[in-house]
């Protein structure tokens, strides 16, 4: 039930953020520094989410089949594969490594 609450708050914030762009006078958000921080934060969050999902297990760090997924995804991206192919490569690598008895 608690999770529902945070889901709905996240939804409200997401919409409010989009809408703010339409109502705030362009000048207020034109600060190059704010734009830059929003950009670096996007990169930082995505990098962090990648790492957390690859090596974190609760409060521990582990190397398991997910590392294989990370490598497979990087190779797919390097080969300019579309998003869905990248995701499937990651899943296939992790599933295959587990089938072989690792992680």
């Amino acid at each position, binding site marked *: 039930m608690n999770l529902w609450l945070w889901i709905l708050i996240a939804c409200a914030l*997401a919409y409010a*953020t989009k809408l703010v762009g339409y109502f705030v006078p362009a000048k207020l958000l034109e600060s190059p520094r704010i734009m830059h921080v929003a950009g670096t934060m996007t990169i*930082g*969050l995505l990098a962090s989410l*990648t790492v957390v999902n690859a090596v974190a297990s609760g409060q521990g760090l582990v190397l398991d089949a997910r590392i294989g997924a990370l490598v497979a*995804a990087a190779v797919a991206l390097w080969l300019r594969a579309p998003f869905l192919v990248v995701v499937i490569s990651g899943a296939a690598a*992790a599933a295959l490594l587990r089938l072989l008895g690792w992680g």
Partner: protein
Amino acid sequence: MSSSAVPMKLRDSPAFKVALSLSIATGLYGVSFGALSVASGFDFWQTMVLSLLLFSGGSQFAFIGVVAGGGSGVAAMTASALLGLRNGIYGMQINAMLRPGGWKRYVSAHVTIDESTATASGQSDPDEQRRGFWTAGIGIFILWNIFTAIGALAGDAMGDPKQWGLDGAAVAAFLALLWPRLKGREPWAIAAACALATILAVPFVPSGVPILVAAVVAGVIGWFSHARMDEGLEPDLDPYAEKHKHHDGGRK
């Protein structure tokens, strides 16, 4: 009926074609969101509410990713909200471009995402911008939600998600969202610094919090660095990449 003229016009519109192919490609990967979401412990309706109401791929993946890692609802909400900040900037750009009035503003805000913004800003003619934005925005909204539902139902029937490597799929999805933003040295340095900060933080703070630590690190770097000012803010993709490729080819 007079409407017969409209499809003719749309078929000739480059923005419409780009938006349509983008809608199909993006909509399809709603399957991976739906499947990952139920694998992370969300039920069908929670998954659908995220796609219907939150409707921003990166933020949706962030929300379920934090929860899947054992993080709290607050941490998931915070990560999702921070990742959605760029949509506010897109909103500003679209508002300046299309100036939607009245109720249209509230609808266009909801479909202001990476793909619709990219499609519109790749055009210079205002009518084309409008067609591109609305076709991509509404097209993706419809297909993304249909495919989220399919993924959620399929994921539910699959049993142990790890056996299918769905945790690996999440890793791949985040890397794929990050990848197009890593153009140049500064983005790479920020990504590396935030990855390191995350690894260092994991053993010491509750799940979900390392992501917020990384956000602070990225924010501080961004505040003090003076590189290109729109770094990382380009939408996820370049829908007109094909055209650019042709240009490159012409130069050779």
